[in-house]
């Protein structure tokens, strides 16, 4: 019988090849995080060492320095056709998480440049490294997921997932393809370990803390951890019950809980 990781890998590679065959103008969205780096690795494997389509990095200007270093090093080593998309104008005007709400900031610095690059390059499909276990909202995601002009995902009206039978493509802006959908956080780390995939150093413990998910520096917090190697991260995840994105707003929740308990005479 095929081992678990190989069967996961096979499913992902099948989807990547299928997508490359179906769409004229495909690209990969690379956040430099562990998931999209794993996806990039799988694309390399799917096409025998060379990624045959562009790799897009949305640069908000607020990423950790370690992320830029990693991006530039591996874009060169792996011979990637790297497109850095960025809302230079807005960053120049001082847009950022200090100035506006998080949602607005993401919209301005992530969604807007992505829309521009999709239009400019005529991109019809994007390979994205999301996983179903990441967040409640991902539970309904499909491997092939249509987005409209406003990038909205209408989960109530998704086409049936039959490999060859998409509904009319005319109303869609682009398709998102999720070859890692069936993998969990633990699967990803186990696969990284097996394949010896390089990942950004922020994931490993420094002075008792490490990042479990990485993105823009102002919106990410490290967690207490002693895990300084992939093996130790896997071990740590096995004992962990918190979600990947948990712990960020714990203080706020505690204050709220305290208020609720006090209102009922506890505390």
């Amino acid at each position, binding site marked *: 019988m095929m081992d678990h990781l190989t069967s996961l890998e096979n499913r992902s590679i099948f989807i990547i090849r299928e997508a490359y065959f179906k769409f004229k103008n495909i690209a990969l969205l690379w956040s430099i995080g562990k998931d999209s780096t794993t996806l990039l690795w799988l694309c390399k494997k799917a096409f025998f060492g060379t990624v045959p389509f562009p790799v897009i990095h949305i640069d908000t200007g607020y990423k950790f320095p370690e992320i830029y270093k990693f991006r530039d090093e591996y874009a060169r080593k792996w011979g990637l056709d790297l497109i850095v998309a960025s809302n230079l104008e807005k960053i120049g005007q001082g847009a950022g998480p200090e100035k506006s709400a998080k949602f607005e900031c993401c919209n301005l610095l992530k969604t807007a440049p992505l829309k521009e690059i999709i239009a400019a390059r005529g991109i019809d499909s994007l390979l994205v490294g999301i996983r179903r276990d990441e967040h*409640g909202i991902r539970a309904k995601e499909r491997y092939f997921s249509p987005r409209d002009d406003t990038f909205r995902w209408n989960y109530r009206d998704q086409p049936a997932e039959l490999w060859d039978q998409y509904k009319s493509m005319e109303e869609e802006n682009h398709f998102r393809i999720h070859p890692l959908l069936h993998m969990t956080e633990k699967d990803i780390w186990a696969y990284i370990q097996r394949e010896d995939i390089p990942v950004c150093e922020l994931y490993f413990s420094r002075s008792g803390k490490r990042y479990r998910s990485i993105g823009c520096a102002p919106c990410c917090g490290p967690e207490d951890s002693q895990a300084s190697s992939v093996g130790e991260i896997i071990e740590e995840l096995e004992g962990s019950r918190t979600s990947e994105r948990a712990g960020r707003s714990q203080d706020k929740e505690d204050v709220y809980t305290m208020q609720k308990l006090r209102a009922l005479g506890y505390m």
Partner: protein
Amino acid sequence: MKKKCLVAGLDGVPYTLLKKYIEKGILPNLASILNNGFALSQMDASLPDVSSTSWASFITGANPGEHGIYGFMDLKPGSYQIYFPDYSSIKAPALWEILGKTGDDKKSSLSQAYNGKLHKPRRSVVLNVPQTNPAVPMNGVLAAGFVALDLKKAVYPDSAFQYLSSMEYSIDVDSDLAKDQKEIFLKELLGSFDKRKRAFRHFFQNEDWDLFIAAITETDRLHHFFYDAALDESHPFHEIFVDFYRDLDRFLGELYKAFLEKAGKDGLFMAISDHGFTKIKSEVYVNAFLQKEGFLRLRREGRFFERIDEGTRAFALDPCRIHINMEGKFPKGSVAAAKRDSVMEEITGALFALRDESGQKVMSSVFRGDEIYNGGEKDRGPDLLFLPNDGFDLKGILKEEKIFGKRHFTGMHTRHDAHCVLPDSVPLNGKKPRIEDMAKVILDYFVSA
């Protein structure tokens, strides 16, 4: 017909009140259910009788020594720092995890007893059960109850969140209103109950389920602030209180009828509460008493239990979980292992001697943690647990300096007066049922042919 079980969870509804209201003709639907093959029994809540512990005991069929929930608030191991346990703190699998074949990294004596006996995975809808936040993926639908801040995190899957947010469902009413805006509080309470009923109906009809657990919290909230109105006909809020129960009874009748249509006579219908309620005579601030008797020393600085100073021998967490300040267990532990029993005896003697100004004894019984708790979480539990006589609401807060007091709360929890409504066919063998026994009743139902 496919096997189906429905549990109506009536938070804080006492057995004795149901009895009295049935006699007065206030609850005709419940009375008719009881005339059709069901029995209403008095039930013991968990120890302690707080909602988080009692509901955790119901959903896991385990005692706190095994599931790990001793209250809404607890101390981080080896420290005086407080934290608020949530669903991830529950160490035993819930009914829907055992039946749904999910949560397989969790085990309990109950889940192991049914290992191999439950064949096909069953789907559950679990609505508003306290202590189930944040929602984790499970086989079915779950909308967590108290305490949850963010509806999105409280609900699984996302389609259920979309529905609940579209109908402006609220997890809990704002109980702060009850302090000085009683009419507004009651209006909101009724509004929140209406939304709750709509949500229950929606999932009842539109989801495919084998187990349906629907918990109603509004009863507990009403009781905390208006329990003095329950039986006092001259109370300005008596009519409102009784009307609420009439409405609750109509809803129970509706649920039962809908359940009969869906599940037939072979379905398992039951109602339970997580604790009872009684009127408050006085609140009792146990830590103030421990301070006065020289067991507890507090500094002015620090947050909550981090105020504990050198020389402290014991302290109380809500409602009266006494922890002995043991050497090696707590940072400022001062009691050596050999002295533990004598300190426990000393505290028991002192607390049993405590009387209010009318001379009434405050405490009714005491349990040793190592006698009532068993399982992997036993060591985190209290050394002693006291239960009061009805009317004395024990509090583990630190900021009160006097021992007795009264605030705007008029109702308090009781352990001995929870209720359960079960089919006559479920044998109780002459024993008073306990809330942690109910999970077994449900699992047995799904096992038997």
